[in-house]
């Protein structure tokens, strides 16, 4: 038996506009770029909806209607769903229509597509809960399977998510952990009792997601017949073929003229030609197949780059500094109880921001550069860091409203300065002059 399990990741971040030092203290809208640049979230969403989401949804609906055996799964980031709500309700409706067929499973993830698990378990739990709520609200279902941001995974996460009640978790079928073993079985982390780990078959997944249109590839052009033969070959030495990929593969990463839609249109039929093949969703796969062995991930693995580790988001000093500074604000941000401020802080947790600061492959002009809306990782970092400055000022501002004077020293600690021409600054200065430093210190002690 070879069960094919399709899971598509659907995510769009709130990209930060070119936010400069001059904006700090004046402009609290970080994500509202309206230019022709690729920082304009609305523009990008419309573009991708037109090229990918709408036509692919239409195709999948056709396939679901045509083949009663066909099944798929999606994971939507919360920030993606928010953007659909804001910019393209039509696209949201078409996803809802797919889910209504009953053969489309939805997975849970962090609402903000974040790496919170690495920095704050509490925040991680809050974001997963927010996500569950959102999925229930929009699709009327409660997910049973968890998938973490960019398939970042380790044993600790498996255990943590098991305790949260999930039946299965997805991970990259990384060679350095699997060794000679096949990803086409169900595995389990060594430290858990129930939760099962489903591993991405990265060869077959990437044949579609990355290599499909590559003319340098010996297998080009990839036909649905050929691909089905590769899947057929799993019969007898595997249970499950997990095809995990970004949904944007269809029409956005692989453009329509590569033939990707025709490939997908014919694929279920080709796969079903083999009598032992069928389709499953992740939760069905976990239910149906027994665990055959341990998948022991002491260190984090992910589905990014050849390294399959965290280096796309957390390898250079700027990335580490930015994320550390962000999570250092957690207590203060939550204490403000200011919903907008908290939401902005969370939007800054989206892993894409750190990906844009990656310098690993910057010189080679490869995939990182292709997916980076900023000219350089340095510009991405500077805009991000300026936003953090403003966020600190806003935190100080709410404290000021509540508690009076200490906010001034907070503002100073944040190192934020506003040009004297602006009235905002004058107010601050005027107050500062009225209260000599000693008095401030004295009041603080009280």
């Amino acid at each position: 038996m070879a069960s094919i399990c399709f899971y598509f990741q659907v995510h769009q971040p709130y990209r930060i506009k070119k936010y400069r030092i001059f904006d700090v203290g004046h402009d609290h809208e970080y994500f509202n770029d309206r230019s022709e640049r690729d920082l304009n979230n609305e523009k990008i969403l419309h573009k991708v909806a037109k090229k990918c989401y709408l036509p692919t949804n239409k195709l999948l609906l056709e396939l679901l209607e045509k083949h009663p055996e066909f099944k798929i799964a999606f994971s939507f980031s919360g920030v993606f769903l928010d953007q659909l709500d804001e910019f393209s309700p039509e696209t949201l409706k078409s996803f809802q229509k797919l889910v209504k067929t009953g053969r489309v499973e939805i997975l849970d993830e962090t609402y903000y597509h974040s790496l919170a698990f690495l920095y704050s378990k509490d925040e991680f739990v809050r974001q997963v809960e927010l996500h569950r709520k959102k999925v229930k609200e929009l699709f009327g279902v409660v997910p049973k399977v968890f998938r973490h941001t960019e398939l970042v995974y380790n044993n600790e996460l498996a255990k943590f998510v098991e305790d949260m009640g999930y039946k299965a978790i997805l991970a990259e079928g990384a060679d350095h952990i699997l060794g000679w073993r096949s990803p086409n079985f169900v595995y389990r982390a060594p430290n858990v009792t129930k939760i099962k780990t489903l591993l991405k078959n990265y060869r077959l997944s990437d044949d579609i997601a990355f290599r499909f249109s590559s003319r340098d590839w010996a297998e080009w052009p990839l036909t649905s017949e050929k691909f089905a033969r590769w899947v057929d070959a799993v019969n007898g030495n595997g249970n499950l073929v997990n095809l995990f990929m970004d949904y944007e593969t269809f029409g956005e990463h692989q453009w329509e003229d590569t033939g990707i839609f025709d490939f997908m249109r014919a694929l279920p039929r080709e796969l079903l030609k083999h009598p032992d093949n069928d389709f499953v969703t992740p939760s069905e796969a976990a239910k149906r197949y027994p665990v055959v062995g341990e998948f022991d991930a002491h260190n984090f693995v992910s589905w990014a780059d050849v390294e399959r580790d965290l280096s796309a988001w957390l390898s250079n000093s700027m990335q580490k500094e930015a994320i550390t500074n962000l999570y250092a604000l957690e207590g203060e941000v939550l204490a403000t109880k200011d919903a907008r401020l908290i939401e902005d802080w969370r939007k800054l947790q989206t892993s894409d921001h750190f990906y844009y600061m990656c310098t690993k492959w910057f010189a080679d002009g490869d995939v990182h550069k292709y997916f980076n809306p900023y000219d350089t990782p340095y510009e991405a970092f500077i805009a991000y860091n300026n936003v953090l400055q403003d966020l600190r000022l806003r935190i100080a501002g709410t404290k000021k409203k509540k508690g009076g004077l200490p906010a001034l020293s907070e503002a100073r600690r944040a190192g934020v300065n506003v040009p004297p021409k602006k009235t905002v600054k004058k107010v601050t200065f005027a107050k500062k002059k009225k209260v000599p430093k000693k008095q401030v210190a004295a009041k603080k002690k009280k």
Partner: protein
Amino acid sequence: MKHIKVLMFGWEFPPHNSGGLGTACYGLARSLSKADVSITFVLPKRLDGLDHNFLKIVFANIRNVKMRGVKTLIHPYITADLYDEYLRTAPDSELYGLNLFDEVRRYGLQARIIAREETYDVIHAHDWLSFRAGIEAKRVSGRPLIVHVHATEFDRTGGHPNQYIYDEERRGLFAADCIIAVSQHTKNVITEHYGIPDDRVVVVHNGIDIEDHHRPLPPALEHIRAAGKKIVLFVGRITIQKGPDYFIKTAKRVLEFDPNVLFVVSGSGDMERQIIRMAADLGLADKVIFAGFVRGEELQKLYRAADLFVMPSVSEPFGLTALESLANGTPILVSKQSGVSEVLTHALKSDFWDIDDMTDKIVGTLRSSGLRETLGELGARDVLHLTWESAAGKCTQIYNDLLRA
């Protein structure tokens, strides 16, 4: 490949140089001489003859290089006014030309004498002051002429060229069998402003001798750093080309956001007084330090003391100082109107006129140790592949191509 003999018209060598041209001539000649090339190096001999003796020492243990000095008052960054001043104070003033242009002509004629005495396969002349000498050598020998453009009159004057110098440059460019430009930026200037067809210009980027910048040195400006101040450094001639005025205007803007920054200007030039006055008028007298012309180890110590090196050049054919800063581990912000910006990935880049953008980047860098570290580390790795060996290799290829043709 056969052994090639080059007659090279070059300029002053470090440490007695007054700018990047000397460093470039020296780096290139040193690497060429290690390849299968021998050089007869013709260069202006200054009044005291000190330079010439020094050069003998520099090349004493390198075979393949022979020095020929010509007594003249010209040097790479000379202007007509400066020449007149030199002439007034020169001991044997009757020897030299009546003015700069007369002197350039006289230098060319002197070169002709040398060109007749020497044997060589190709002629290689660096920048306009030596173009006439190159043309004379070509005339007497019939050998191919390569002119190497390190800067044009358009770069030096911020787009307001002196007609005589422009004509001299153009004459050299048209007489040349091959033109070498130090960057694509410079190649563009040559094709756009001098009417040279694209296929006659080859880009050979400058390099740097990394080992020279990795020596252990005692730290500089420690008291300033100990006081928690950040240091932003400018290194270059204080002339319109280098954008010192943009540096000062940006300093003013940066200080509005971060008063704890010291701006250090290292260099001298015809705009020096104007720039000092400008800094004072903007109320920056105690925020901008003019260090004068600094070279060698002192300059390296300055690079290392700085948190960020800024090169806001209006038009920069290459910009060797930017590589020097990176070789010393200090991150850089360079103008997009520079040759180095073509070859460096891990550098901040702005338009020279965009004071707000430079301010944003400078403040951002000074506030984040993570950004400084990443830029510094990866920038230092960036310069490793920019070697004089590679530049010399490309020149050798050009010699061979010309000789085969």
